[in-house]
């Protein structure tokens, strides 16, 4: 269906590329995926049907994105990488893949045939198909990564606006708390928090929020401090607007720009964090596939040239995703600098 829509001419695309429809599409892509990954087991059999609408949405968003960013090659490359994984995530249940958790033929090296099955990327030490594990693996990283980042941003932006705009004691207190959190090395914070809450996706969200919200808060605070000196804020104040109104309608829309760039970078960091934590055994838990987990599980068995593919596959996968985020960020920055 996505295809036909695209064929029906740019006019539609133009209409779609206005903010509202884009957001709608994003939600259409995001909510099902989140639901599927977070509550899939509750949805029981046929859970994958929720992903159906997400697939066209993804494709459509990608097309729009490419059109919007065509000025910057970097951004387009980044976008492509990210959306490749997004597409994989939403369409994984529909792809002709073997069960990622089913042991078939251990230690099958890539591009070899076992019985009537051909293993593109081989199988891991339990004989689970690496290809399908890699593809399924991106789901959890993406969902948890993005969720965590978003939550962190809501929190960070909120406090940033408050301490930036209201200043005074608000600022003193918020900034102090931020300093406390910032003076822990991120990993220490992660370890302590996750060790306390126990390893799980939701706790990762909490941990990431604790770890990144302060930094975000600082950025937003800085922007707010700058913007609040602008005459239009002054005008709003002299109009007797309520601080809340000013923060939400006058400040927030104008901090959006710089934040989006930072968000892409941070998505990268979060992905790194999740993978790393999972590798350390503090993150997502087996058996469902996840890149960090694949590394963790293979690290013990694959320490040999001929088995190194077990490590390389997830390592390269995660790197490509992060590269995608970073390039996207770079592209966006580049464009924002141009005009």
């Amino acid at each position: 269906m996505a295809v036909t829509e695209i064929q029906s001419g740019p006019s539609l695309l133009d209409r779609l590329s206005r903010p509202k429809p884009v957001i709608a599409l994003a939600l259409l892509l995001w909510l099902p995926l989140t639901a599927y990954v977070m509550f899939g087991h509750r949805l029981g059999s046929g859970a994958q049907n929720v992903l159906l609408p997400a697939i066209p949405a993804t494709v459509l968003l990608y097309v729009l994105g490419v059109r919007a960013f065509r000025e910057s090659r970097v951004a387009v490359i980044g976008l492509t990488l990210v959306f490749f994984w997004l597409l994989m995530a939403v369409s994984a249940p529909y792809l002709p893949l073997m069960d990622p958790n089913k042991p078939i033929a251990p230690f099958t090296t890539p591009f070899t045939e076992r019985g009537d099955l051909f293993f593109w990327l081989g199988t891991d030490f339990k004989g689970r198909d690496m290809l399908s594990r890699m593809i399924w693996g991106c789901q959890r990283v993406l969902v948890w990564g993005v969720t965590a980042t978003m939550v962190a941003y809501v929190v960070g932006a909120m406090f940033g606006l408050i301490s930036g705009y209201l200043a005074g004691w608000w600022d003193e207190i918020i900034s102090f708390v931020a300093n406390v959190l910032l003076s822990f090395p991120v990993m220490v914070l992660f370890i302590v928090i996750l060790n306390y809450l126990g390893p799980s996706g939701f706790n990762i969200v909490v941990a990431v929020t604790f770890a990144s919200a302060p930094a975000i808060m600082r950025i937003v605070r800085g922007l707010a401090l700058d913007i609040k000196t602008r005459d239009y804020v002054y005008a709003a104040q002299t109009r007797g607007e309520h601080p809340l109104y000013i923060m939400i309608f006058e400040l927030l829309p104008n901090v959006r720009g710089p934040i989006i760039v930072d968000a892409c970078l941070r998505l990268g960091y979060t992905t790194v964090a999740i993978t790393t934590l999972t590798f350390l055994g503090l993150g997502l838990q087996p058996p469902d596939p996840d890149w960090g987990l694949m590394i963790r599980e293979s690290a013990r068995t694959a320490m040999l040239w001929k088995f190194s593919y077990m490590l390389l596959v997830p390592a390269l996968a995660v790197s490509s995703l992060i590269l995608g985020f970073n390039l996207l960020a770079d592209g966006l920055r580049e464009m924002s600098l141009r005009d």
Partner: protein
Amino acid sequence: MSTNKTTNTMHPKVREAQEQMDSGRLSRREFVRYAALLGVGAGAAYAMAGLPSPAIAQDAANLPFPADDPNAKAGGILKVAMQVQKIDDPATFSWTQASNQTRHMLEYLAMTGPDNVTRPMLAERWEASEDLKTWTFHLRKGVKWHNGDDFTAEDVKFNFERWTDPDLGSSNIGLSSVSAMVEEVDGKKRLIDGAIEVIDEHTIRFNLTKPVLSFPEDMYNYPTAIVHRGFKPPLDNVINGTGAYTIAENVVGDRCILKKVTEAGGQPFEYWGGTVFLDEIHYYNFDADNQLTAFAGESVDAIYDFGVEQMELAKALDGEIIAARTAQTLCCRMRVDAAPFNDERVRKAVTMAIDNAAIKPLVYPEGGDVGENYHVAPVHPDYEALPPLTRDVEGAKALLAEAGHPNGITITIDIGNTDGPWHQTAAEAMRDQLKDAGITLNINVIPASKYWEIWTKTPFGATAWTHRPLGTMVMSLGYRTGVPWNESGFASAEFDAALDEAEATLDVETRKGLLAKASKILQDASVMVLPIWRPVYTMASKSVHGYPAHPTQYHQFNKVWMS
């Protein structure tokens, strides 16, 4: 000492046994086993059995160790990758690794060799009364402590007294032998007076409340290392032992360095066990996952063990893979007093829906035996096969329905992977099979440390049990009514009685039967899914000679040498 001297003092049962053997009811090996266990020097026993003695020292001192390899070279340092643990108090060791660190310094009354035969070690020989309620140990003379003291019965007494002190929290108190010297007075265990009699400097007798068969085996249980009578924990303060080596440095989580002992209390030290070849034994701390990679990286000459998932890697490495068939297992037990498993039908349904024979190859493609949902392994001499289990999905469904779960049931198993990720593999295999019977198995993977917090409490958990030389041993450790390690909460007087009987019987044939009876009770109660008897794999480089493959990974390097 001469063979006939041995035969003179030979336990009457030995003759009996020899007859059994001759009449073919007892395999030669089994004969050797308890000839030795009844105090006959193993060498002699082998002789009687007409077996070629497997390089067991023939000399009168009947040393428990293999004979010296003629082209053995003295010297060299053996580097082993293993978790280096805290060794404050041997009596409270929780892990084999810790005992390995001390094993070449603190020795045991008996020693179970790689061949699963138990021989006298610090004891020279022992005798059991007819009823197996009185055991007399004759201690080896000329054994010296590193501080120059002689090794005497006092040392042994001291150790037993420690083990039976409940506040020490030593797991030895659970050993059938030791527990048979303990009485419970208003909820507090204590040693029965007169349970231990010191006859003379080198003779000590134990009077037990019930017949115990496995006394010698118990004496090579990892926490039963004999410490000096003056011992006070922590060990580091009183580095003292009878072994050929002593601990020069022990840094937890880093390394444990053992050096050959040269002098004891001023005089040159003369090790009772004959020549040892290695100058030093180094343990370097590598957690289970990394030992093989450390070996691959040639940081070490040998490792403690590696998991089956690493087999392919091991095969690809240049070294010798040493596998041992064991009674180590994964016991997925259901707590009989916790819903839904307090309903026997549910437990039965679970066991019926699972086909152990199908699981084993998935988990351990090579080596190992199929488990039969009770805790006796084919490697045990007193094992007798029960009628084979058959998978019955329909029956399982029926039982579930009967138990009030007509459209299936969802259960959760706690997996700690305490003995490696193969636990999880097994659980996953079980999950796939249970599906057919409408049972949904959620696998709750938790960190090992967390698992140990709940291993006795969780309704459904997979606990790793280590190898014990006799079938009766684990049965009484884990399934007698109310024993501390009864993780399933299984309580059956019938079972206890059957087990008592088995443990009181020497005759293998009869004991097999009796143990089988107890086993059947346990199996029918469907307390556990025990799918696998795992093999243990370890690895040593080609330059290491005589590296033993012990079913419980007890290291005994006295005769190991390096080229």
